[in-house]
């Protein structure tokens, strides 16, 4: 089994209502790469993420995770390898207590009880939520829920971590600690996000998706620093890539990426 790689080859997907979500998408993620998936709403980002875990099946094309075809025969192995964190933590945290939620994945991996408990402890420590094991999930704040949602997949010890809008709804402090956490995790990382500042800090590659097609696959600063490209696809250049030549005149007349500066 090849470790930590994703291969998507000519994948297309149309929802039953006729909405075309993905059109001939191909990409390759190498081991331990940190990649961002950006694009406007409805671009197909979440749909692509659901394919990586086998929750949606490509109508055309092929997906390989860690060298394995994502098909019914390999679903168990693929789902153990790909940790998928959903956008809304209320979808991710379906068990009555935090402990049960974090233990859910390892339990279905068939691990012995001692290992499950050790993994739960380690995952909660990794997200800074020690002491929350006995708490009810619904009594947590959104920031806490997001961290626990991440712990629920870290306990799987995934080779690939896939996150859908991880910073949505977080306050600045919770967002900052999430960024710190993401910069320290080791698996291959794929993040779908509108938080382009987070993308700049965490990822070393960005894929711009629009209308189900890959538009650009390249360096985050170059891609997101291109004002025309970003505007055409309903996005904005991140503020940290804007050079304010005339900061007191209230306009961004002269702009350049940090690299150009």
């Amino acid at each position, binding site marked *: 089994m090849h470790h930590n790689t994703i291969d998507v080859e000519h994948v297309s997907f149309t929802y039953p209502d006729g909405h075309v979500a993905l059109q001939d998408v191909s990409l390759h993620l190498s081991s331990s790469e940190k990649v961002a998936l950006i694009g406007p709403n409805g671009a197909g980002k979440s749909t692509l993420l659901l394919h990586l875990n086998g929750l949606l099946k490509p109508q055309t094309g092929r997906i390989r995770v860690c060298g394995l075809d994502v098909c019914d025969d390999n679903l168990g192995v693929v789902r153990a390898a790909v940790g998928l964190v959903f956008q809304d933590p*209320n979808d991710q945290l379906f068990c009555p207590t935090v402990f049960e939620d974090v233990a859910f994945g390892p339990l279905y991996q068939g691990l012995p009880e001692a290992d499950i408990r050790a993994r739960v402890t380690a995952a909660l420590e990794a997200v800074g939520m020690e002491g929350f094991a006995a708490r009810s999930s619904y009594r947590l704040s959104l920031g806490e829920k997001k961290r626990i949602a991440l712990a629920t997949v870290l306990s799987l010890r995934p080779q690939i971590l896939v996150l859908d809008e991880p910073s949505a709804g977080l306050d600045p402090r919770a967002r900052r600690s999430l960024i710190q956490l993401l910069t320290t995790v080791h698996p291959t990382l794929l993040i779908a996000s509108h938080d382009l500042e987070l993308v700049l800090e965490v990822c070393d590659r960005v894929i711009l998706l629009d209308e189900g097609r890959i538009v650009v696959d390249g360096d985050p600063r170059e891609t997101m620093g291109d004002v025309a490209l970003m505007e055409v696809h309903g996005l904005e250049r991140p503020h940290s890539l804007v050079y304010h030549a005339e900061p007191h005149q209230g306009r961004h007349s002269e702009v350049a990426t940090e690299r150009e500066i």
Partner: protein
Amino acid sequence: MTTAALDPYRPGDSLLHQLDARVKVGLALGFILATALAPPGAWPVLMLLLALALAVVILAELRASFVLARTALTLPFALAVLPSLFTVAGTPLFSLPWGWTATWEGMLRVANVAIKMWLSVLVALTLTATTPFTAILVVLRGWGLPKLLTAILALTWRYLFVLAEEAQRLMRARAARSGHIVQGRGGSLAWRARVTGGMVGNLLLRGTDRAERIYSAMAARGYDGEPRVLAQPPLTVRNRALLVLGSICLTLLALAGILFWG
């Protein structure tokens, strides 16, 4: 009202809060059974059970207002036994104009049932106020309640609050757009009913959508349709002793009621 108020559990560190959930659930069920078995007229037994229940409530450090308000919910159900006041033969107490005569024995029967009902609810409330519902489910699962049933109950409990919050958001959105310039104008009753119907339908659709996303999240972490749970650690010797002692006391009370007043 916050949705958390729906949960009867009151966090705390009283003796009862710290007690193992298996001991609490076992003794609470035993108490309710002993109360139900007490025959009419077994007042000494009921008084002992009442003293026991009140001692437990004090140990749980629950607020009297909370306990009284929640247990008052039994009062409407006590109305169901009110006809016994007139149907049980015995010494007349008073008569109503329609020829109905209340009897002393009938009143004792009503009081007996009402007290039993209140005692049972009091103990159940104390259990749920000092034990998270999830812990009670774990106990029932450990005692052989089908795993699928406990999984459904756990999911229902978990998402009850999410659904209640969704409903609150919908109602808030309606209220925010329900301003009217002319006092008293707010749409006809039929129109309001249609809006409410639409909101209920919306809630159902949101619930269905949520259910699909939850299933995806479960499948993503390996769920294969078979509910799996970790085994519980064995009871400590102290908890075992407490469970046995409590069960013996409750059994003796029930037997005393049956033997002397049955």
